[in-house]
C-alpha cells in the first residue's frame, strides 16, 4: 500500500485562526478541504507540504449558499460538490453549474470534494501525476516539488514553462459566468475575477499567495444568459476532462449581446477564445437560434486557442481537432429549448 508522508495537521474552527496558522507557517502550510486532490498527490509525493490546515471545520467557509441582493449568488468555498449540484438556488439560476458539479469524478468524491478545492485544483500531467520511482525513471521534470527550473519539461522539452493541464471542470464555467472570487489572508481580503485567478503556467497556476485562501465565490445573477459546459473524456462514468468548453451567451433583441467561451484542459488555465466570441457578438438569431454558419465560424476560430500536449489521455492532435467539434456542439446545445428552460 502507498502511505501518506508525515505532516502536521491543524483543524481550526474559525477563519481568523486559519489565517493565523497559514501566516505563521510562512509558506510551509497548505490548506486542505476534501483532500480528494491533495491526498492522492501527497501519496505520490508530488505535493509534500509539511503542514496541513484543514478547512473542514471552519464555519465561515461552510455557510449556506445564498443570494446577496445586488451581488448575486454567494457560494462558500467549503460547499461540497454534492451540495452545489443539489442546491436549489444553483439549480434555479445556474443549472449548468449544478450539472457540471455532478459530472465531476464519482458520487463518493463529490460528497468529499469541495467547490473551493475544485477551483484550486493542482494542474495535471501524465509526467507529473506519477510515483517518485516513475518520475525518477524519466529524470523528474520542472514541476514541484523535486522539480527544478533547470530540468526540462518532459512533454515539451523546448518549453520554457510547465505545460501541466488545468483540469478543473468548474473553473472555465466560473470564468464564463464572470464569477468573482474572494481571497483572504491575515493581511485582509481581496477580490479577483475568476478569469484572472488562473495563470497559464503549469507550475504557478493560481494567483494565490501561499498564506491566502479562497473563501467564497460570487456569481452575478444571470440576465438573459444561456450557459453550457461540455467536457471530453474517455469514460462517461468518471474521468478528468481532457477538453472542456464553457459557453455563455447573453441574448437581447434577437441578438447576441455578450459571448464568453472558455476552453479548458488544453492549456494550464481556462483560455478565453476571444475570436470565437467576436464572431458571435452582435450576430442576429434566426427563430431564436444561432445561425449554423455563425456557429461553424465561431467554432473554427476556437481551435487556435487550443494548445494540447501529449500529457493527458487521448492523442493531442485529436483533442485539438475536437475543440472545434465541442465548441460547435456547445453552441448548438444553447439552441435547444431544453437549455432555454434552464434560464
Amino acid at each position: 500500500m502507498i502511505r501518506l508522508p508525515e505532516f502536521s495537521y491543524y483543524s481550526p474552527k474559525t477563519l481568523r485562526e486559519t489565517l493565523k496558522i497559514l501566516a505563521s507557517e510562512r509558506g510551509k502550510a497548505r490548506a486542505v478541504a476534501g483532500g480528494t486532490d491533495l491526498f492522492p498527490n501527497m501519496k505520490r509525493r508530488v505535493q509534500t507540504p509539511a503542514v496541513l490546515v484543514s478547512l473542514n471545520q471552519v464555519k465561515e467557509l461552510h455557510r449556506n449558499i445564498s443570494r446577496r441582493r445586488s451581488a448575486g449568488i454567494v457560494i462558500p468555498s467549503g460547499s461540497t460538490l454534492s451540495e452545489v449540484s443539489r442546491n436549489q438556488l444553483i439549480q434555479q439560476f445556474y443549472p449548468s453549474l449544478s450539472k457540471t458539479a455532478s459530472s465531476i469524478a464519482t458520487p463518493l468524491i463529490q460528497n468529499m470534494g469541495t467547490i473551493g478545492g475544485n477551483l484550486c485544483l493542482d494542474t495535471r500531467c501524465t509526467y507529473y501525476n506519477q510515483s517518485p520511482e516513475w518520475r525518477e525513471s524519466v529524470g523528474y521534470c520542472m514541476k514541484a516539488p523535486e522539480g527544478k527550473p533547470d530540468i526540462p519539461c518532459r512533454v515539451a522539452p523546448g518549453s520554457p514553462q510547465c505545460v501541466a493541464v488545468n483540469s478543473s471542470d468548474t473553473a472555465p464555467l466560473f470564468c464564463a459566468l464572470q464569477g468573482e472570487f474572494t481571497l483572504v489572508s491575515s493581511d485582509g481580503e481581496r477580490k479577483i475575477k475568476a478569469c484572472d485567478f488562473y495563470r497559464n503556467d503549469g507550475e504557478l497556476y493560481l494567483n494565490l499567495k501561499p498564506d491566502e485562501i479562497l473563501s467564497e465565490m460570487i456569481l452575478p445573477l444571470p440576465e438573459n444568459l444561456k450557459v453550457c459546459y461540455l467536457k471530453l473524456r474517455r469514460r462517461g462514468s468518471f474521468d478528468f476532462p481532457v477538453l472542456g468548453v464553457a459557453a455563455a451567451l447573453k441574448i437581447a433583441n434577437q441578438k447576441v449581446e455578450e459571448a464568453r467561451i472558455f476552453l479548458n484542459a488544453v492549456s494550464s488555465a481556462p483560455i478565453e477564445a476571444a475570436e470565437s466570441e467576436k464572431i458571435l457578438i452582435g450576430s442576429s438569431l434566426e427563430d431564436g437560434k444561432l445561425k449554423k454558419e455563425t456557429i461553424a465560424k465561431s467554432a473554427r476560430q476556437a481551435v487556435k486557442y487550443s494548445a494540447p500536449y501529449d500529457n493527458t489521455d487521448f492523442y493531442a492532435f485529436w483533442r485539438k481537432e475536437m475543440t472545434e467539434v465541442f465548441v460547435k456542439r456547445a453552441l448548438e446545445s444553447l439552441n435547444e429549448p431544453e437549455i432555454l428552460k434552464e434560464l
Partner: protein
Amino acid sequence: MTLKVIGKPIPKVDALARCTGKLQYADDLIFPEMLFCKIYRSPYGHAFIKKIDVSKAEKIPGVLKVLTGKDFPISFGILPVSQDEPPLAEQEVRYVGEPTAAVAALDENTAYAAVRAISVDFEPVKPVMTIEESLKQEMIHKIAGLEFGDIEKGFLESDEIFENTYFYEGNTHLALEEHASVAVPEPDGKLTLYSSTQVPHYLHRTLAKTLNLPPSRIRVIAAPNGGGFGGKSDVFSHEIVVSKLALLTGKPVKICLTREEIFYLHRGRHPVLMWLKTGVKKDGTITSMHFKSLLDGGAYGSYGVASLYYTGALQTTTYKMKNYKFEGARLFTHKAPCGPKRGHGTPQPRFAVEIMLDEIAEKFQLDPAEFRKKQLVEPGSVTINYLKIGSISLGKCIDKVIERSGWKEKFRKLPFGKGLGLACGSYLCGAGLPIYWNPMPHSSVMIKLDRGGGISVYCGQIDIGQGSNSMLAQVVAEVLGVEPSEIKLFCADTDFTPVDLGSYSSRVTLMVGNAAIQAAQRAAAFLKEAVSEKWGIPKTRIELSEGRIWDRENLNLTIPLAEGIQLAEAKFGAICAAGSYTPPKSPGNYKGSGVGPSPAYSYSASVVQVEVDPETGNIQVEKVWIAHDIGKAINPLSVIGQVEGSVYMGLGEALMEEQTFRARYQGVHKTPSMLDYKSLTFKDMPDVETHLIEDPDPNGPFGAKEVGQGPLLPVPPAVANAVYDAVGVRIREIPLHPEKILFALKNKPPKKNFPDFHAPKIISVPLPSLSEERSRQPNSSLTPDSSASKNPS
C-alpha cells in the same frame, strides 16, 4: 436422470463471506511479529548493474534484512523450457520495474524508506521497444512453423484470396485484488507461504527449486483470489523473496504490491502483429489459410512458448479447414513480461480471422451468419491439426444471437452511424498436457465422511472468484444427495489437499468436476455396500438423496445419511475416498502438438450493436447479445456472471485498454494507475443479453464445458465488424480509439506493415486419417451412474 443441484442458479458458497468482507485475502492475514517487505525496482528498461549499495538501507533503524540478486543464485520460470527469471536481478535489468533488491522491516514505511535509500549504479542501454526492432536484433524467444495439408494447393483451388495485416494491442488483467503474500516460518523449521496465486502447485515446486529446499518442507496455501484472469498464474519474484526473508529473519514477512507494481508484474495480453491470408471459393468455402503472428513478449519467458503456439492453434476448431499453415515468433523486448490473460493467445488470432470472415462475406455478398454456419466443424471430429472436438453447438449460438438481435432486419440496413457486427469464438476446457511433463493426474479430489454426517472435500483447486468452490460443492452434493451448503471445502493447501494443477486454461470445472464425481461415487459405493448388506437388497436399489439413503423400490425404507455413514464406517473403517482426472491422450503427435488439445471445446457467438459518432469517432456500444455453448451449466447464475465478465473485458480491450510504454524515457509504462489505464467501469457497461446453449459434452462433468474465458473471444472482432457496418471503415487493430476511427473516416484506414518474416523450419504434419479418427473411442466419461442421483419419489 433428474438433477437436484446441478443446473440450479444458487448463490456461490462463499458469496456471503466475499460480500461482507469476511473472506480473508492474503493481505488480510496478520501474524505476530510480522515484518513488511518492499522491493526496489529497476528505473531502466535496459541496463547493466555495476554496483548495488545497500549499506544506507541496512543502517535504517527497523530494517532487518536487505537482499539482492546474489542471494538468489537459482532462476525460475513457469515453463520448464523458460527458466529465465532471476528472483532479483543481479547483472542486468530488462524492464522498468524489474525487482532488483528487497527489504524486510518492522513496518511498511520503514521498508519503503529503506528501498529509497538503496543506490544502484546502472549502465543504461537503449531499450528495444518494438516488434520490428526486436526482430531486427534477433531477440527471438521462440519460433514456430507448422503446415497441415498443402496451403499452396489450397490457394490454387480458391476463387479469391484475401490478405491483410492485423494488430492487437497488449493489455493487462486489472484484477481488483493486488497481489499479496505472507511467508511464515513454522516452529518445526518448515515454511508456509500464503499467496494470492492461481497456481499453488507450481508455486510450491518453484519455491522448492529457488530456495533449494525439499518440497516437503514447504507448504503453500493459496488465499482466495480477488480476481486473477491469468495475472496470478505465474510464480512471481515477490513470492520467492518474502519466503527467503522469512527463513533468514525467522519472522513472518508480508508483501502487498501497489497497483503500480502490478502493471510492471503484468504477464498480460501479448501485443500481436498478425498477417492472415485466406483462400475462399465463391460460395464462401475456405480452401486454405495461412496465418503469421509476431508476439511482443516483453522481457521474460513466462508462458510465452504456449502463448505463441496458442496464437496458431484454435483457428481450426470453429470452421472446417482443409489446408492450414502457421508461422510465428515470440520476441523479447524491454517491457514488462507478457503472459496469459483470459483467452491466452487466442483473442488475437480470433480478432484477425473473424474480421477477415466479415470482409469475405461482404465481397461475396453472403450473410456473415449463414456463411459461417455452412462450414462449422462437426461434433466428434478431429481437426486438421489433430484437435479432437466433442460437442459443438456454435450453429445454435449463432442462430440465437441472430434472432435476438434482429440481425436480419438490421445488418447493413441501419442508418449511417449505427451498425451491427457478428463474430464467433472457441476455447479449450483445460489444456490436455500439464506444464511440466508427468504421467500423473491433472486433478484429484479427496472426500472424508464423518459419522455425524459431515462431508469434507479436499482439493488443490483455488477459487479465483470464478466460482470453482461452488462448482466443487455442487458436484459432490449432487452425487451424495445433499445440499451444497452441507459440504465443507478444504482447498488449495499443498499440505492438506491433493494436487490440482491450478486455475488456468479454463480447466477447473472439467477436471476438478470429473475428479470430484469419481471421488464422490467411490465414497457413495462404501455406503451403498454397507446399507445394501444391512437391508438385504441389491446395491443398485440404493439411492442417496435429500440427505438420506433410500430403497428406490420401497420408499418407506430410508435412513439419514449419517446412519449410512456409521454402517459403512463399522464395516470398512474410516470412510475416505479419492478421485482423479487425467485428460484423454491427444491424437496429435507432432512437435508443437502439446498446445491446443483439450478434453472439450466451448463455443460462443456474439452480436454487438454500436453507434459511432462520425464527427469524433467515438463508439458507443449500445447492446451485446451473446450465446455460449456451455455443454451443461452446473450453476447458470455463475455461468452468466462469467459470460458478462468476459464481455466486459472484451469490450475494454476493444475500446480502450492498452498497456503501452514511453520509448523516449527508458521504456516507462505510460499509465500505471487505475485512473490513467482506461478500462470500462460498471457504469460504462452496455446492456448484455446472455443465452446459454446446453449440449452436453461427453467429456464434461454432467456434460459441462468452460465459460471463464471463451465468451471474451467474439467480442473485440464483433465490435470492429459493427463499426464497419456503422460507418464503413475497416479498422484492423484494437483498441478502437476514436482517433483511429476519425482518421480512417477522413483519410484511409491506418495500415500496419508486416515485417518480412518466415519461420526457418516448417514442420509438415500429415493429415489425420479417417480410420484413426474412427478407431478412437469417445473418451471415458465420468457421468455418475443414474442410481446416485435419481429422485426416489
